[in-house]
């Protein structure tokens, strides 16, 4: 991987208000930083989820640093787009994205899940600026986003709304309630992104309760469906663009990903769904990601 477009110290450039529309190379560099953040904060906390955050990193980075129109220093800026992670357990990636984007200092990441920090195990509106709705119980987020889309329609505001879901989460019936609702009301400002990493807590999604053919399901629920390689940033950007263009239907992006992507010993292994790396494992992971715990935690603590 290359950092030639964005060094680890180019932090404030990611804090600018508005839609950043970064080019691919910068996004790739930022995604690498995010992965380092995730491993570092998990190693520090010794608690939390590794797998889903790493599979969500690339589209998450594309969302935050290319697509979303937000003002991190004014999280409730009336003109903002709305984003929400229905999979509340992927807080390591959510908080890393938020901190890198400027919602709060990077050093806060080092207090993930700690009693005296503001970064709860699952997203908490009460605790963290920029979290608009708490989450942690699966299946509820797309409904929340439907509400936001309806409110925006009432206000005749063109805001776009992005909702990140899990593939295991598709087993929750509420997903299909909100899916039906969004299509019925033709909420075309709404864009769902499914982290299709084929894993959930107890193993392969297809072994737990199969969700295939997932694209057909969403199509039968009257959504516009786009499938992408969820680690291929150009494909992701193209999907976001297509979603913007598509009128009369909400769009869902099936982002085919690999759980634990970016760390060799975590990749595609469901046992990394819900546990953090031990410190020695973190060092191996961070080495693969081109840094060390000492170096990267110092960067976080200094910013």
């Amino acid at each position: 991987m290359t950092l030639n477009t964005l060094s680890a110290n180019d932090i404030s450039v990611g804090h600018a208000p508005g839609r950043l529309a970064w080019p691919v190379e910068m996004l790739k560099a930022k995604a690498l930083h995010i992965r380092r953040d995730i491993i570092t904060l998990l190693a520090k906390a010794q608690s939390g989820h590794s797998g889903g955050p790493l599979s969500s990193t690339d589209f998450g980075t594309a969302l935050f640093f290319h697509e979303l129109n937000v003002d991190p220093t004014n999280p409730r800026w009336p003109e903002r787009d709305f984003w929400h992670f229905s999979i509340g357990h992927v807080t390591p990636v959510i908080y890393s994205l938020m901190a890198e984007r400027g919602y709060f200092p990077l050093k806060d990441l080092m207090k993930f899940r700690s009693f005296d920090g503001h970064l709860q195990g699952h997203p908490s509106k009460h605790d963290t600026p920029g979290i608009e709705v708490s989450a942690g119980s699966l299946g509820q987020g797309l409904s929340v986003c439907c509400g936001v889309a309806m409110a925006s329609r009432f206000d005749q505001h063109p805001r776009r709304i992005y909702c990140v879901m899990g593939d295991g989460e598709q087993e929750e019936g509420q997903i299909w309630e909100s899916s039906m609702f969004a299509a019925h009301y033709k909420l075309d400002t709404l864009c769902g992104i499914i982290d299709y990493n084929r894993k959930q807590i107890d193993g392969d999604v297809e072994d737990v309760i199969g969700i295939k053919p997932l694209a057909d399901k969403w199509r039968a629920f009257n959504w516009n469906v786009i499938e992408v390689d969820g680690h291929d940033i150009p494909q992701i950007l193209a999907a976001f663009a297509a979603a913007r263009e598509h009128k009369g239907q909400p769009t869902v992006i099936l982002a085919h990903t690999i759980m634990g992507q970016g760390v060799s010993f975590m990749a595609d292994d469901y046992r990394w769904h819900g546990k953090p790396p031990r410190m020695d494992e973190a060092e191996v992971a961070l080495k693969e990601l081109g840094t060390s715990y000492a170096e990267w935690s110092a960067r976080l603590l200094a910013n």
Partner: protein
Amino acid sequence: MSPTDVKPEAAPADMITLPEKVEMKKTREGFGRALVDLGEQDPRIVVLVGDLKESTMVHFFAQRFPERFIQVGIAEQNMMCISAGLAAMGKIPFLATYGAFASCRSADQMRVTVAYSNLNVKIGGAHGGISVGPDGATHQAMEEISIVRSIPNMSIIVPCDFWETYKATIAAAKHDGPVYLRFGREDVPVVTDKDTPFTFGKGEVFAEGTDLSIIACGVMVYEALRARETLATQGISARVVDLHTPKPLDRALIERCARETGAIVTAEEHQVNGGLGGAVSEVVVQTAPVPMELVAVLDRFGQSGKPAELMDAFGLRAKDIVAAAERVMQRKRSRA
């Protein structure tokens, strides 16, 4: 009727004195009417329904403000969270469905998405209580107070009649935070009027008394007032408190009742475990322990029948309050 129309006899200071024949009206209509008035005043008011437009009486709002009305269909979980999303964007959503579904089908959504986020969602739970009648147990919501009360940040109001439901709905809109409104299906006696005071989180002494306090909510407030009349003929002076807001609870008033009257009967059209009686018990033992009797549904499911039959069969009548008052007075006397 209004307090000014009627010349009070027994206790001149009473806020409420019942005439012999009381007007009957649906509490849910108070909800439906208030929504329209709120809609006129505040463009942020949005109403959602889960395929029960007329039963919950939100059709008044739907007719007046179709552009701010959202039909969600039969999807209560979705409705609770859509409301959260609306509230997150500054709207004041009122959702409406039967209380059995509002409190149970979307309990997780109420807890995590609405209450934990402390979002400004108002939950209209219709068809509370055994008086729902012929639909039977599944549709007779009787656990809402227990459930809602246990969830932090939530409030719950159980108004006693049409006017109080109207005021409770207005008050819920003014309160910043999630509120559950519980109301019933049938015509019930109108005991308050347009001008009877109503304060969110404060109980109201509807009639004074010195020997015991009857603390009631919902339709049981009427039964309590009737019970007081009977008790008066037996020389027992009963205070009647309309404790319309089981949460936030008017702890000071409950303590005052315990101290001043030395005995309490609670009355609610709700399961006995953890409801209004439970809430009052918790305060009483922590402040001024006095004998109490709880008039409520005794931990059993409802059933089909006419509302009046069921109120009789489930022991939710003035006579049941009178019997409880006699028991509590005997216990009070035997302690003295």
